[in-house]
């Protein structure tokens, strides 16, 4: 009977699942088109990195580097699962993958691809009184992570923490979402604390300094914007 009940919960969760993941995403994404200023403090980097990120939908992102000085102009563009970085020393843009390191423990995809809905299938694997556990599995290749375990608040579905895994199920890093503050009409996490699973003393804090809803033209998301 217990197994039947669990199966019912699982099936009903999957059936209504898309809305839940969209609900979770809405905490980190105020609208379809917005910009945000992100500061990354890393235990392994001397200087903070600051990025101005322009996002439209789930498949178009332009990242402009504002600091540190040595990284200036190393701007990035994401279209679909494709990503380009401009290498100022070489005066050319080079294609890279989403899961490559951005700075510290943060990967390119950690700030360029902020929505899980659309990219991942999921199921609810555990429902505690205070939190639910979702297991996400990538629908396509080339995403930042093959699998993600996400813990969300049972009360308001806000993301609390996540584990990012390889296809074989090995945990690469963990993240916790905190400092929820009212921004653009909703409580949103201002801080994402990412820890390397192999080197536990290495961490990065992604601090969202500002957010603004803006309707960016599609033509902003071209390689021309990298220069």
């Amino acid at each position, binding site marked *: 009977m217990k197994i039947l009940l669990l199966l019912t919960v699982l099936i009903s969760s999957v059936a209504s699942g898309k809305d839940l993941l969209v609900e979770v995403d809405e905490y980190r994404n105020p609208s379809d088109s917005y910009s945000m200023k992100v500061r990354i403090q890393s235990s392994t980097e001397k200087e903070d990195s600051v990025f101005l990120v322009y996002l439209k939908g789930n498949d178009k992102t332009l990242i402009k580097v504002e600091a540190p000085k040595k990284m200036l102009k190393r701007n990035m563009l994401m*279209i*679909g699962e494709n990503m380009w970085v401009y290498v100022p*020393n070489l005066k050319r843009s080079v294609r890279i993958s989403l899961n490559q390191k951005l700075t510290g423990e943060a990967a390119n995809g950690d700030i360029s691809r902020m929505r899980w809905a659309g990219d991942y299938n999921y199921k609810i694997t555990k429902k505690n009184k205070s939190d639910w556990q979702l297991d996400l599995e990538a629908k396509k290749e080339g995403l930042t992570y093959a699998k993600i375990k996400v813990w969300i608040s049972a009360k308001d579905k806000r993301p609390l923490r996540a584990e990012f895994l390889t296809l074989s199920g090995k945990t690469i890093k963990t993240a916790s979402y905190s400092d929820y503050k009212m921004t653009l009409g909703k409580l949103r996490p201002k801080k994402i604390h990412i820890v390397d699973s192999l080197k536990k003393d290495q961490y990065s804090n992604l601090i969202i300094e500002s957010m603004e809803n803006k309707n*960016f033209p599609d033509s902003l*998301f071209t390689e021309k914007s990298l220069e």
Partner: protein
Amino acid sequence: MKYLAILMIYSTSVFAAAPQFTLGTRSSYFFDDNKLANSFLYAQTEYSYENYDNEMGLKLNFDIRAMDYYSSNEKTIVDPVNLSAEFLLDSHRFQIGFVRYRFSETFGLQLLDIANPRDYSEFIFNDLSWAKRSVFGMNHTVKYNRLETQFILTLWPNGDRLPYKGSPFNEDGFIEGGVVERPWFKNPEYGVRTKYLFESGLDLSLLYFHHFARSTPGLNEQVDSFGLAFSYVHNEWVLRGDNLYTLSDFVQPTFLQVEEKNHFQSLWGIDRVWENFTLGLQVQFDFNLYRHYAGGQFEYSAFDVWKPAIMVFKNIKREDYWLQVKNRFSIGDFNINLTYDSFGGEKTDKDLFGHFSSHDRFLIDVSASF
């Protein structure tokens, strides 16, 4: 000297708007000649303004450089690297002004880079920030989902800059040297490039361009080129290719020969970017001049202060080669670039770098940015 002074004054006056201002000097020591040459002071101001708050996005670019030679009597050169305005509306992006077009993601001998004249004063081709010259033109890009089409009209094609008489690359004075003059609104260049990013990640582009023949420096003949370029990401590796077919091109088997013939060039390469290491490997074919090269470029970026890079091009069948070792040091606002270029090979019509075999050089570039 007066232009450099004007630029410096102007830069200072707009400093409140926080542009980046760079002041530096470059000089090359040529081993065979045992002398310093191509020595100059330079000043550069870079500033851009972006506003996407309104329905029409606006980007203004102000990037200008002045070079004042102290190793020769050349006039001060003011180079408008990017003085342009860009307007963004929905899927349209329109740019007008002094610009440099970019058609390729490769390194070394940029065969698709046909839309910009070149600065041949140093005859070293890969450092595009110095080798490309700006033109005045209009550039309209239309993006529709994964399809992107770019229309280009160059109203002032600008001319190549040739090595000054008496400089190591023009010691005998075979050519006049200096900037090749090209009048405004006469013989415009134009073309279209369309590219499509497939779901698989294949980025494929086709281009047509009507332009001045760039295979022979300083020539005032126009030709038509057709190109095909692609890049594709497989796991962490990027595969890429550039192909260019130029009808009735003017090619240069040796420095003193020019021949008119259809010209087909092809380049295939792979890239990979690791955390602290960038690798590029490519093969490059010129099917009409029978010059085929294999090349590699490696950059190591783990150190905060020192960024070493090495690039090598070697003719697949012949001794003909180009080796370049770069060391870039960044200490606070100061940058020092130390570059060693070595060329080898014979001076026949089958060789390219061999013609420069007596021009091994050590380049030093010291600058401060504020």
